[in-house]
């Protein structure tokens, strides 16, 4: 009976290669792998022919799916190779880490679902975080992923990274690089694991386990080994993070470990396989553990020989696809340069850095920008894995898969733009599915703003699948077993919880887009209930536009407008009643706010286009306009809205303008009125001569001080117009006095006459000079 411990680095192709060789040589009768025993059941699926890495084991708590942990694997993960070896030869393979049932029980709350992504991949925990905060921990995390021991709970450890010490001793400043060159790129594998074990034993000789959790994990591993021994296995192969290797060689007596593990709480967990992506294996996505260059590692794993030549050629092909000239001669030179660089840096073969510097220098002519492309496409090499259909999934996931197949919407990590024609049934169903998923917080697709011509018949989506959706789906499963039922239940639940009317009506809008009849009825009734007790006219008015949109355009999506109209009527009644009261005694900011609400309401009324409603609304506007004590801005706006609907004739406008701008009215209020009237399109106002004349008179009668005080407001009122409009207005005002006017002529004549005299006197004084210049004689006086 013998125990063989293989200390590895997760996702290390060199380790994976040597592990394979070592296992072939050893011919073990059981393989124990550091990983969650919770996943023992789904382990056999690993050799299923539909299984395509990168994939991840997902362990989650069925009651609270947010508490989840991923264990990503890919072809070149040593664990993957070890498990494959065992399963292919039908010898027992077991996970031996502390079950997540116990680990998750210890971390009761995870604030959000991304937390486990960063922390809880036990296979990837670093040996020591050198006191960095979480933000900077990512680098450290992965850098020391090889050592694999650090639980997430103690990020503040002030300890020197043991691997860094080793690397320093070897003369490397970057221990990641050291490991890469010493272990992963090594082609001669003899005695690799003995070497690792020896180095780690030296490191751990005077370092106790980092904390209780690490001690418990290692205790559990030893217990698993003991159990295997007891069962009578002869050659036990143990595959674990290099850091743990020394403490697993000889398990010794079980007593201490049993004590350590007693009294650990457990929760229920479920395990499944989910597809994973290459970019999630890398640092960049903020997933704190893994490898920077999965594409490069995969290349190291798959390329049989001539690694740098194949890599440079792939880079050249990639650049050619992008239309950059790269000749074979350049590729030859790039490889030569990479090799010279490696030699200069005392390396046996070019590493990724050497290759990339050579590619940048030779293939890109020193220009760094194409390197981003090579980094994305080659170094990371984005790819989505695939798991067999037999993998245990929640019913919702199954339902989603059926729908995806039926609608021919394949999940992909690339960003794809979908243009859906809602008149076609499949496209409509696709849009509805995407909307339903969005309701469930699974933003697979993002609706894009549609440009004018495609109109309401089109929806343009940007779709991109993300691996975390697997968790979101499991989480959403508590709401129902199909996408429709889950989203219906979830939407209703959300509506119940929401107090604010506009939010509910937004939700209603979404539910209608997602075509969930069950939810529509319920949310409508909730909306009605809330509206009945809502005292805030703003909220009522804010809730109106989405409803009006639905009522007007709903039929495109075959939603009946009749359901909604009663609700709109109810809301509208309340608005009409509440509005005058809500408009009294507003300060400037509140008036601005009210203005927006009134505009929204107006928009809805014109959208619905119902005569009775419009009459009622116009009546309300008129009421507001004429009521004293209402803010000038609101009154001005009402005046403008009525004018736009041709409810005011010129005479009335003249009167209103005069009234609002009369000297008795406080000047700021008058200015606010002007702003209210002028806001919006300028062309309509251009032809209201009376308005301009009144404005002109009011302005010229202001005292200089008041004028200065009002100038900002006036300027603001005019600032939204287009320059041509402003110019037209200027021309208009300039020519006001010369315009033949029927109505205002008599009223303004005396004042204007007085001004004329004044001007004439002044004008007379320049006439002689002018006459002299022009060489004419001056007639008259």
């Amino acid at each position, binding site marked *: 009976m013998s125990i063989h411990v293989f200390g590895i680095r997760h996702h290390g192709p060199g380790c994976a290669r040597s592990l394979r060789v070592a296992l072939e040589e050893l011919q073990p009768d059981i393989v124990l792998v550091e990983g969650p025993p919770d996943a023992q059941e789904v382990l056999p699926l690993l050799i299923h022919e539909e299984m395509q890495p990168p994939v991840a084991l997902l362990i989650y708590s069925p009651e609270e799916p947010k508490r989840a942990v991923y264990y990503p694997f890919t072809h070149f993960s040593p664990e993957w190779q070890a498990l494959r070896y065992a399963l292919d030869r039908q010898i027992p393979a077991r996970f031996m880490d502390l079950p997540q049932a116990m680990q998750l029980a210890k971390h009761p709350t995870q604030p959000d679902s991304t937390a486990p992504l960063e922390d809880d991949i036990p296979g990837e925990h670093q040996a020591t975080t050198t006191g960095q905060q979480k933000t900077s921990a990512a680098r450290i995390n992965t850098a020391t992923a090889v050592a694999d021991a650090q639980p997430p709970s103690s990020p503040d450890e002030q300890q020197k990274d043991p691997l860094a010490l080793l690397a320093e001793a070897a003369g490397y400043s970057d221990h990641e690089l050291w490991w890469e060159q010493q272990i992963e790129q090594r082609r001669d594998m003899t005695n690799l694991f003995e070497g690792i074990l020896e180095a780690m034993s030296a490191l751990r000789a005077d370092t106790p386990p980092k904390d209780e959790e690490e001690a418990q994990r290692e205790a559990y591993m030893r217990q698993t080994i003991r159990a295997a021994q007891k069962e009578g296995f002869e050659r036990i192969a143990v595959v674990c993070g290099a850091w743990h290797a020394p403490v697993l060689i000889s398990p010794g007596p079980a007593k201490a470990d049993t004590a350590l593990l007693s009294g650990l709480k457990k929760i229920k967990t479920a395990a499944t396989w989910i597809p994973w992506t290459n970019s999630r294996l890398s640092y960049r996505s903020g997933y704190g553990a893994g490898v920077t260059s999965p594409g490069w590692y995969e290349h190291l794993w798959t390329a049989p020989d001539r690694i740098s030549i194949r890599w440079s050629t792939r880079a050249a092909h990639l650049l050619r696809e992008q239309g950059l*000239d790269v*000749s074979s001669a*350049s590729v030859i030179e790039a490889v030569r340069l990479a090799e*010279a660089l490696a*030699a*200069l840096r005392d390396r046996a073969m070019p590493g990724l850095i050497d290759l990339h*510097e050579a590619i940048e220098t030779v293939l890109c*002519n*020193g220009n*760094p920008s194409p390197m981003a492309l090579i980094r994305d496409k080659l170094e990371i090499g984005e790819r989505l894995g695939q798991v067999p259909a037999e993998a245990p999934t929640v019913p919702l996931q199954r339902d989603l898969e059926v729908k995806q197949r039926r609608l021919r919407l394949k999940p992909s990590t690339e960003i794809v733009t979908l243009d859906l024609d809602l008149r076609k049934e499949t496209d409509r169903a696709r849009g509805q599915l995407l909307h339903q998923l969005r309701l469930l917080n699974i933003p697979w697709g993002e609706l894009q703003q549609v440009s004018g011509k495609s109109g309401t018949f089109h929806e343009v989506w940007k779709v991109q699948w993300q691996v975390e959706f697997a968790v979101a789906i499991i989480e959403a499963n508590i709401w129902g077993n199909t996408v429709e039922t889950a989203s219906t239940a979830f939407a209703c639940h959300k509506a119940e919880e929401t107090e604010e009317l506009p939010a509910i009506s937004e939700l209603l809008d979404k539910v209608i887009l997602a075509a969930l009849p069950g939810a529509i009825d319920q949310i409508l009734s909730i909306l009605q209930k809330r509206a009945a007790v809502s005292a805030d006219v703003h909220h009522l008015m804010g809730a109106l536009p989405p409803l009006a949109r639905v009522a007007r355009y709903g039929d495109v999506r075959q939603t009946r407008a009749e359901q909604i109209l009663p609700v709109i009527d109810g809301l509208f009644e309340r608005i009409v009643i509440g509005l005058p009261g809500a408009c009294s005694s507003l300060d400037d900011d509140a008036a601005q706010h009210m203005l927006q609400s009134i505009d929204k309401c107006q928009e809805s009324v014109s959208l619905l286009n119902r005569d009775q409603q419009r009459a009622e609304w116009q009546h309300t506007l008129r009421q507001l306009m004429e009521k004293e004590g209402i803010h000038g801005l609101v009154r001005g706006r009402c005046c403008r809205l009525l004018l736009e609907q041709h409810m005011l004739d010129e005479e009335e406008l003249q009167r209103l303008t005069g009234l609002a701008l009369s000297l008795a009215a406080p000047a700021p209020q008058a200015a606010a009125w002007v702003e209210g009237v002028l806001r919006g399109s300028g062309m309509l106002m251009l032809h209201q001569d009376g308005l301009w004349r009144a404005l002109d008179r009011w302005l010229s009668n202001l005292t200089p001080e008041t004028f200065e005080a009002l100038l900002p407001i006036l300027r603001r009122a005019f600032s939204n117009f287009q320059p041509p409009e402003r110019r037209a207005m200027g021309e208009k005002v300039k020519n006001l006095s010369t315009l033949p006017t029927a109505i205002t002529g008599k009223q303004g004549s005396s004042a204007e006459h007085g001004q004329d005299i004044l001007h004439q006197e002044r004008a007379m004084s320049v006439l002689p000079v002018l006459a002299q210049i022009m060489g004419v004689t001056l007639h008259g006086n």
Partner: protein
Amino acid sequence: MTTVDNTQTNHTDNNNEKAAPQDVLRQHAEQQYAEELAELAKVDNRQRPPNWQLSPWAVRTYLMGGTLPNGFAISPKYIGNPRLIEIAVATLATDRALLLYGLPGTAKSWVSEHLSAAITGNSTLLIQGTAGTDEQAIRYGWNYARLLVEGPSQAALVVSPMMQAMQAGKIARIEELTRIPSEVQDTLITILSEKTLPVPELNTEIQANKGFNVIATANNRDKGVNELSSALMRRFNTVILPLPDSMEEEVEIVDRRVASLGRALELPAEKPALEEIRRVVTVFRELRSGVTIDGKTKVKTPSGTLSTAEAISVINNGLAMAGYYGDGTLRSHDLAAGLTGAIIKDPVQDRVVWLEYLQTVVKERDGWKDLYRACNEVL
């Protein structure tokens, strides 16, 4: 034609009877750093490419500085990313031609001189690229008197630095490659790919010996240059030399260069305080990047490059002023004229930029009052 002839003959003559090194205004790299090169050669026991004086490792140490096993300190020649130098050295080791590309004043020629000094011990095989550079400067010319008397012969041939480098297995340097007319640039193609230079008049050819290579420099700022054809570009490995990354790096570069130049020019003033260098570098960096170091104020950018090399010459100029007209210590009024001259390249636009900068940044800064007053006096 004759002028070309004369200059080339003179050039060769100069090479033959070298002036005593200590009398020349500026020594070649291999003369100035002869001791360092000798020490490096003594300890360098690694493999050398054919005809190289030093191994690539030693060349890197020569450029980047370091301490030899016997305790001898090598001064850094290039302060910046060592990877760039490694790429450059590796390029030359693979007998590919090297193109150093970058803004004016980013040490392109400096690196090229030191690379050839370290690799071949000779940095003088230099072709200055101008709009008037013709094929003879790159290939060979004729001594017409002899040509008329004797007809075409080896003796009538006037060899170019390129030809010399090929024969001796040394490195030829081409400065400002992009200023050379395109059709003249094309003569390089055969030299670079086939390493041979045909002489049809004598029915012979010059084949390059091992160790021959070309280092070209070109700047990417100037307009109206002759862009390299892709055929030629393909024969070069391009290394782009950047402006210094950090303030500290740039201060160190200026400090080092000023010290060594001051020594060479025998300026009477004492070594400038680091503080003054820091001020000049700050002004240059701020104007170059368009924002103050603290990131709080935006400033306009003048039309010049404001490279590190210019900062060095401003300080040097100031040192001379201080030495001859001042009290021997570098003060702000010694710097003012040089600083103003370096920044105002366009008398109208740049003047406004500089004035604005003085008013908004220099005037407000603690302890910079003297500089403000001095610069205002000059303007």
